[in-house]
C-alpha cells in the first residue's frame, strides 16, 4: 500500500476513535448535566408544591381523604392555570399506600410511584413508558396529622430526545469529518511524500543500470537527507562500477598481451618441431630448428617465471625486515656476470632499510638489465643509496637512449615494450618494469621514473630506514 494511504488511514482511524470517544463523552456529559439540572429544578419545583400543599392542608378543617382530595384538586387546577404545560402531575399517597389524589397519566403505574416513595426524598427515579420518559420524585409532607407522600412526575422525554438528536447529529458530523479529513489527509500525504516517488523512480533507474541518476529533494526534512544519502550512494556505486570496469579492462588487456606473448614462441616451436617430425631434414635445418626450439622454449620458461613472480607479488604482502644495503649490493655483484657494462654501487653510509632482500635485488637487477638495453654511450649504470627527508632513496641511473615522455605512463604495464624487437632479442618479455613497480608497492613506496630522450633515465624508490 502506498505510504500516503497508510498515513491517511492511520489519521482517519485516530480521528474516528477520537471523535467517537469525544462525542460519546461530550454527549454523555451534556445529558448528565441536563439531568442534574432537571432534578434540581424539579426538586425545587416539587418543594413549592409540597409547601403549598402543606400550608393548605395545615389550615384545612380535617384530614379526611375527601377534604384532601378536593383541596388537591383545587391546587392542581390553580397550577394548571398558572403554569399551563409546565405543571407537573402529582399523586398524594397516604398510609399503606392509599391514593388520596392523583392526576398522573394512566400510563405511569402506581407501582413505580410506590417505588419512588420507597426510594425516599433523597433519591429520584426514572421510568420509561413507551416513548415517554418521566422523572419521579417523592417527598413527605410535614407537620400534618397524617403521613402524606407527594409524588411528582416530570416529563423528561425531551431530554432523551435531545440526546438522541445529538447522537444523530454527531454521527453525521463524524461521517462528514471523516470523509473530508480523509480527502484532505490524502492530498497532503501525497504532496509530502512526493519526494518518496522521486526516490522510487531514481532507485528504479539506478537498478536498471542508468548512470547519472540523482534526486533533488529540498523539503528540508529527513527526506531531503535521504535524498542526499541516495545521491552519495549513487556516486559510490558509479565509482565502484567504473573501478570494476577499469579492473576488468586491465585484466582483458593483460590476457590479450599475455596470449600474444605466448603465441609467437608457440608458433615457432610448433612449426619447427612439426618440420622435424615430418621427415628427414638436412643437417643444417635440423640444427637451426633445434636451436630455435630451445631458444623459444627458454623464452617461454622465463615468461612463466616472471609471470609467477608478478602474480605472487600482486597477491600478497611481504615480510619487511631490516636489510643492509651492503648485503644487497653484494648479491647484485654476484648475480650479474662480468659483462659489458660497468656497474657502480654507491652508498652514503652503512644504511639498513625495511625490506625484502631478494626482491630488492631483483628490483635493482631488472633495472640494470634495462639500462644495459638502453645502450649508454659511457657504458655505465649507477646505483645510489641516499638519505632523504622522507626516507632512504634507492636509485638506478643510466645515460642511455631514454624513454619518450608519452610512453612513461605505460611502461609499467605488463608486456609493454618501448621498442619491441630489441627487448625480445635480449630475451625480455616486457614484464621487468611491471615487476619492479610491484616490488615498489610492496615496500610501500611509489615508483618514480625520470627520463629524457638521448640523455638518460633515472628510476628510484623510497624505503623506510631500519634503525639497527
Amino acid at each position, binding site marked *: 500500500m502506498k505510504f500516503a494511504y497508510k498515513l491517511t488511514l492511520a489519521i482517519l482511524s485516530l480521528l474516528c476513535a477520537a471523535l467517537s470517544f469525544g462525542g460519546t463523552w461530550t454527549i454523555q456529559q451534556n445529558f448528565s448535566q441536563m439531568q442534574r439540572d432537571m432534578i434540581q429544578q424539579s426538586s425545587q419545583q416539587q418543594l413549592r408544591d409540597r409547601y403549598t400543599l402543606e400550608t393548605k392542608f395545615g389550615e384545612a378543617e380535617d384530614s379526611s381523604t375527601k377534604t384532601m382530595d378536593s383541596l388537591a384538586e383545587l391546587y392542581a387546577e390553580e397550577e394548571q392555570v398558572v403554569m399551563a404545560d409546565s405543571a407537573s402531575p402529582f399523586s398524594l399517597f397516604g398510609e399503606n399506600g392509599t391514593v388520596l389524589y392523583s392526576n398522573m397519566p394512566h400510563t405511569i403505574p402506581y407501582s413505580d410511584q410506590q417505588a419512588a416513595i420507597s426510594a425516599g426524598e433523597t433519591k429520584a427515579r426514572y421510568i420509561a413508558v413507551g416513548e415517554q420518559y418521566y422523572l419521579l420524585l417523592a417527598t413527605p409532607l410535614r407537620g400534618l396529622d397524617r403521613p402524606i407522600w407527594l409524588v411528582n412526575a416530570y416529563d423528561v422525554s425531551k431530554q432523551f430526545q435531545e440526546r438522541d438528536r445529538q447522537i444523530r447529529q454527531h454521527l453525521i458530523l463524524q461521517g462528514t469529518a471523516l470523509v473530508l479529513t480523509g480527502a484532505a489527509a490524502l492530498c497532503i500525504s501525497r504532496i509530502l511524500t512526493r519526494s518518496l516517488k522521486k526516490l522510487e523512480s531514481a532507485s528504479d533507474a539506478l537498478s536498471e543500470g542508468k548512470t547519472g541518476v540523482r534526486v533533488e529533494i529540498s523539503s528540508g526534512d529527513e527526506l531531503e537527507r535521504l535524498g542526499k544519502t541516495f545521491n552519495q550512494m549513487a556516486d559510490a556505486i558509479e565509482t565502484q562500477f567504473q573501478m570494476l570496469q577499469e579492473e576488468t579492462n586491465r585484466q582483458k588487456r593483460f590476457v590479450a598481451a599475455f596470449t600474444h606473448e605466448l*603465441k609467437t614462441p*608457440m608458433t615457432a616451436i610448433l612449426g*619447427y618441431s612439426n618440420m622435424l617430425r615430418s621427415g628427414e631434414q638436412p643437417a643444417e635445418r635440423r640444427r637451426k630448428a633445434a636451436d630455435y626450439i630451445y631458444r623459444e622454449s627458454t623464452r617461454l620458461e622465463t615468461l612463466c617465471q616472471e609471470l609467477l613472480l608478478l602474480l605472487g607479488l600482486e597477491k600478497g604482502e611481504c615480510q619487511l625486515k631490516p636489510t643492509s644495503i651492503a648485503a644487497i649490493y653484494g648479491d647484485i655483484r654476484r648475480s650479474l656476470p662480468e659483462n659489458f657494462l660497468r656497474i657502480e654501487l654507491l652508498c652514503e653510509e652503512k644504511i639498513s632499510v625495511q625490506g625484502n632482500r631478494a626482491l630488492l635485488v631483483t628490483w635493482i637487477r631488472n633495472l640494470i638489465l634495462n639500462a644495459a638495453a638502453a645502450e649508454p654511450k659511457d657504458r655505465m649504470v649507477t646505483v645510489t643509496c641516499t638519505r632523504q627527508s622522507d626516507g632512504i632513496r634507492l636509485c638506478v641511473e643510466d645515460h642511455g637512449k631514454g624513454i619518450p615522455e608519452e610512453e612513461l605512463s605505460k611502461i609499467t604495464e605488463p608486456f609493454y615494450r618501448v621498442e619491441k624487437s630489441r627487448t625480445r632479442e635480449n630475451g625480455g618479455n616486457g614484464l621487468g618494469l611491471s615487476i619492479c613497480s610491484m616490488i615498489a608497492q610492496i615496500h610501500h613506496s611509489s615508483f618514480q621514473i625520470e627520463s629524457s630522450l638521448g640523455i638518460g633515465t633515472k628510476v628510484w624508490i623510497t624505503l623506510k630506514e631500519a634503525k639497527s
Partner: protein
Amino acid sequence: MYPVLIVEDERAIADLIEMTLEDFGYVCVKAFDGEQAADFIEKEKFDLILLDVMLPGVDGFSLMEYIRPTETPVIFLTAKSSVEDRVRGLRAGAYDYIVKPFAPDELLARVDGLMRHTGRRSRTIRLWDVEINPDTRTVSKKGVPVSLTPREFDLLMALVLNRGIVLYRDVLFERVWGLDSEANTRTLDIHISRLRKKLGWEHQLRSVPKIGYLLEAER
C-alpha cells in the same frame, strides 16, 4: 617469377616461413622491420608479401600505403584474431589474413593457392612428365589423364609439398588419413605402390628403409 618478401621481426618465425616456402621452390627475402621492408619494396619486385601486422616502428597497416601502388598481393600475419582486426586487415587491402600460431603447411597452401590464382605461378604443378592441378584435383601424365582416388591424390599432394624430404611413415599417414583414422598404416604402403605404378615414378618415389618415403625433388 619473383621472390616472396617476408616481413617479420621474430627471426625464428621468419626463418621457419623461409624454410617452408623454399622447399616448395619459392625464393624468399626477409625484412626485420618496416624501414627495411620499405627499402626492399622500393628496390625490388615481389610476387607476394607476407606481412606481420605488429612491427616495431612502422606498423603493418601503414606499410600498406607503400605496397598498394605496386599491386603486390599481401597476406597479413598476426596474433590478433578478433573479427574487427580481420576486417580491418582485409579492408586495408590484404588478400588474406593468417592468425598465429599457424601450421606452416597451411601457410604454404594459402601462399600456393594465392600464387596460382593470381597467375603468378602456373595453375598446375609440373613434376617430370606429370602435371597436377590442385584446383580440379586432376592429374595427367604426358597429357593423358590419370585417374586417382581422392586418398591417392591427397597422398600425392603431401609428397609433392614435401619433396626432397624423407617423410616419416606415421606422420605421412596422419597427414593423409587424419589422426582418428582406424585404418592400418599398411594402406599407406598400398597407396604408395599404386601411385608409383600409375604415375610411373618407380625411381622418383622411393621407400627409405626404417624411415619412410621420399619423393625426389626435381633438379
